[in-house]
């Protein structure tokens, strides 16, 4: 334990409004902490910069999963276990449930929140590629009100998002209009469990006979934030699955992927495996 806990302050207001007020009053001084599976690691390693934290853990206003006729709204404070357990998510949004099941261990899923995962903005996170494939929308909230934006507009650069200093992520909305889409998700980690992703693909495709009518491909660890592989998507929409379209899609992946060499893997490996995963998905659609 490389930090001195006495040097940190943590407060836990019992309402979201109170939290938002605190963030508004001193936006650069309080860092929100939910389940702590990220920030407490930083504390233990002696690299948690913020000395003042405000707890979002278990606030009813953030920890909910609401099922509306046309959408599902997941509160940002929902844990990965909450998500895995939810029957509608398991049935209609299976790749989100799967991604949740791969996020850390059972113990970390009991504490890690979807909101924390998104806001932490790691390019390797497990759920974001799924949310991108689902065209999820984020609702951000502050004392000034709420605003909603497509998740694909949330990340600006490596670990930099559009979140204002006084804002927190309120909820994630996914439309229930994806019946008939075939899902795919695969994560390639350093081992079978409890692994940070080297590369991951989450995809949905709607077929019309042998033609791809719509396809969305979300990817982890191919850019400095989670991304949609739009060039690959464009190369596939309206096409049938032939060796030529597969080759073109692979080539497209290799153009838009800009992975790095890091402690876990190499850029060449990531790019090629991403193309392999996409090809694997396309074969299932044949």
């Amino acid at each position, binding site marked *: *334990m*490389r*930090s*001195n*806990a*006495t040097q940190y302050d943590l407060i836990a207001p019992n309402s979201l409004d109170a939290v938002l007020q605190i963030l508004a009053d001193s936006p650069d001084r309080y860092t929100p902490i939910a389940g702590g599976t990220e920030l407490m690691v930083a504390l233990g*390693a*002696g690299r948690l910069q913020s000395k003042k934290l405000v707890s979002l853990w278990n606030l009813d206003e953030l920890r909910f999963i609401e099922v509306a006729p046309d959408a599902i709204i997941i509160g940002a404070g929902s844990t990965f276990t909450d998500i895995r357990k939810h029957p509608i998510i398991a049935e209609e949004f299976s790749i989100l449930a799967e991604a949740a099941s791969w996020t850390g261990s059972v113990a970390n899923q009991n504490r890690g929140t979807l909101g924390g995962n998104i806001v932490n903005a790691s390019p390797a996170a497990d759920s974001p590629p799924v949310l991108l494939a689902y065209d999820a929308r984020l609702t951000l909230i502050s004392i000034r009100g709420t605003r909603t934006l497509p998740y694909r507009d949330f990340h600006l650069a490596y670990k930099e998002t559009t979140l204002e200093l006084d804002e927190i992520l309120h909820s994630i909305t996914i439309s229930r209009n994806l019946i008939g889409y075939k899902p795919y998700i695969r994560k*390639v980690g*350093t*081992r*079978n*469990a*409890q*692994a*940070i992703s080297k590369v991951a693909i989450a995809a949905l495709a709607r077929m019309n006979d042998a033609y791809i009518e719509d396809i969305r491909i979300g990817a982890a660890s191919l850019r400095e934030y989670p991304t949609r592989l739009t060039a690959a998507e464009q190369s596939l929409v309206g096409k049938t699955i032939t060796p030529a379209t597969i080759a073109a899609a692979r080539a497209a992946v290799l153009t838009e992927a800009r992975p790095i060499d890091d*402690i*876990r*893997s*190499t850029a*060449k*490996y990531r790019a*090629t*495996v991403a193309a*392999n*995963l996409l090809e*694997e998905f396309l074969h299932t659609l044949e």
Partner: protein
Amino acid sequence: MARTPQIVGQSPLRKEGKAKVLGRAQYVDDITLPNMWFGATVRSTIPRGRITSIKFDPAIPWHEFTIVSAADIPGENTIVHLAKDHPCLAVTHVNHVEEPILLLAHPDRAVLPAAVAAVHIAYEELPAIYTIEESEKKEHIIWGEGETANTFKTYLMQKNQTPIPDEIWQEADFIVEGEYRTGAQEQLYIENNGVIAEYDPESGVTVRGSMQCPFYLVHALTLVFNLPAEKCRVIQTETGGAFGGKEDFPSVIGSHAALLAMKSGHPVKLCYDRAEDMAATTKRHPSRTRHRTAVSKDGKLLAGEIDFAIDGGAYATLSPVVLSRGTIHAPGPYLWPHITVRAKAMATNIPPHGAFRGFGAPQSIFALERHMDKIAKTVGLTPEELRRRNLLSTGDRTATNQLLSDPVDMQHLLTKALRDSNYHAKRRQFDHENPTSTIKRGIGFATFFHGAGFTGSGERRLNSLVEIELTPEGQPRILVSSTEFGQGTNTILCQIAAQTLHLPYDQILIAQPDTTHVPNSGPTVASRTAMIVGKLVERAAQSLRNTLLASSHLSDNYSTQDFRRAALRFLAQHGPLKAEARYESPGNIFWDDETYSGEAYPAYAWAVYVAEVAVDTTTYAATVTSFHALQEVGKVLHPILATGQIEGGIAQAIGYALYEKCLWRNGHLTNNQMTNYIMPTSADLPPIHVTFEETPSPHGAFGAKGIGELPMDGPAPAILNAIEHATNIAFNEIPLLPEDIFERMTATPDSGTEDLNPAIAGPVFSEATA
């Protein structure tokens, strides 16, 4: 009339198991002493250089701290193992990142990390070297001089002490060459290194902590403090895993804590966190082995030259002994008419490497068993047939000319292992399925042995002593310095004593290893506890039994109550009773350290391991899908413990082969966290099928031979042999990661084919002529 039930060979409950499952076992960080302070270590941030200044940031209230430097050392500034090259604390120069320079102590644990960061040390950097190749180039000499420049130790092991005649090479049908490499490996015990030290000007030093060899620490302390051994008391606390990583390292951390205790006047707890333990403590030696083998066209080994090199890190520590074991195991379980092994341990500016289960043998056996498959392919034999034509058998002589008088039947073990694993059918099945599957499957095996006990005259030098005393309540209590760290020391020694004394297992006690109370039964290493120490426990128990029988307080066929009564009567009449047994070297063990020949080990365990793998061509990841481990171990003292040892060792070896990579940059271990140093989880390991055979050894208790390290030797080559079967690509370096498989699998014809291994291109390479 009490009939003695079989205890040895059964699986009684682990002696200290109840405390462990209750969460009551006291590991060192669970212990608090009155007025205890906490310690921390200020370490080098550069791999090699001269310290030019040390400044203490005025932001820290240094008057609250105790600060220890080398100047505070009362005795010698050295951590002794085999040489005295290893400073306890650096003075003017550092030779590796994380080298300890200063020690701090404070009553509040939480303030120490900031204090360590507030010690600003400036250096004049010197060129550093990180690989065997850089070291042997001798462009920068970082250790020794002249003959020993950068070289901790060399061995030349030649069968019959004669070089290989030239004609052998000239007339051989095949000469097969290969180069094989293994990486470092972190022991990754779940409990980090830690100790609590106390100092008293009258009574001396007391250190309690997580360790394998209390008397090694005693020895280290006598030098650091210039005190006699009687004033250096060491107590082993419940130890959460060791695997060799707590064999020599406690001498470092124990000395450090004791110095802080001395200067502060308080007991000092010094426990590392994971990041520090991974970065600063010992690892398995990386290795490079080069084979050159003359083979006849019917697959008989004619002669072998083996160059075996290990990277010892910055100081010698145990490198000479690791090198020794690696050297002796390099020729494997085969009959070599001629063999020359040239071995060397080189110095680099990496934190010193040390003991890790297997201790040199996993390295050289990896090379050999990969090379045997290569020889088989070259000559046109199956891997099985090549082994059959060369395996040692009863009455043969090993590469050190040791006569195998104890029965050995590797042919049978090979047959059984291949049958149990369905090897031939699976090989055919995979050959058939692979061409049309994205998952390539393969099956491979390794045949190997592992010598139990210290090499050659080592056991004679150790001169181990075991005692069994009667407690005031009349119960037998075993006194040994052999430590429990999960492998079952407490349990098996109590079983042996119980069986010999004809008492129930529950009646036998074993004392916590406290060097003021227990004799030196030697270190808990080298797979020697069951065989060597167990035998001494057996003899001491027999002696205790004989004493009580002879005292006429007891007659044969006694019951437990009879024994207790007789013991109490004896104690009342004669006072304390302590039976003892000291190691006696069997007459026929003769080892020559000069020529490296003779009886290298009193006994060998023999094994055949079979690995099934799947290589996913989408992700290039290789996983082990099934594993069969067959070994002949003399006597299985405790089936559940023994099986657990094999399974655990195989899990570590799977990590060694496919997952665990130490990533150094400029001498810094960059992946010193569990997140980034990948050990297998419960989801990564295959079903492991363990089978034992027993050919009792005359040397071990109830015939037992050592098994602790054996399971580390076989899996890596078996796995890579299987991967070669699956992919038709020869990988010769571990750890083998998906990125490595990817590089080779996607290599285009322009950049070199998958079939060519650059190491093959030796000067003489001839195809068989029928």
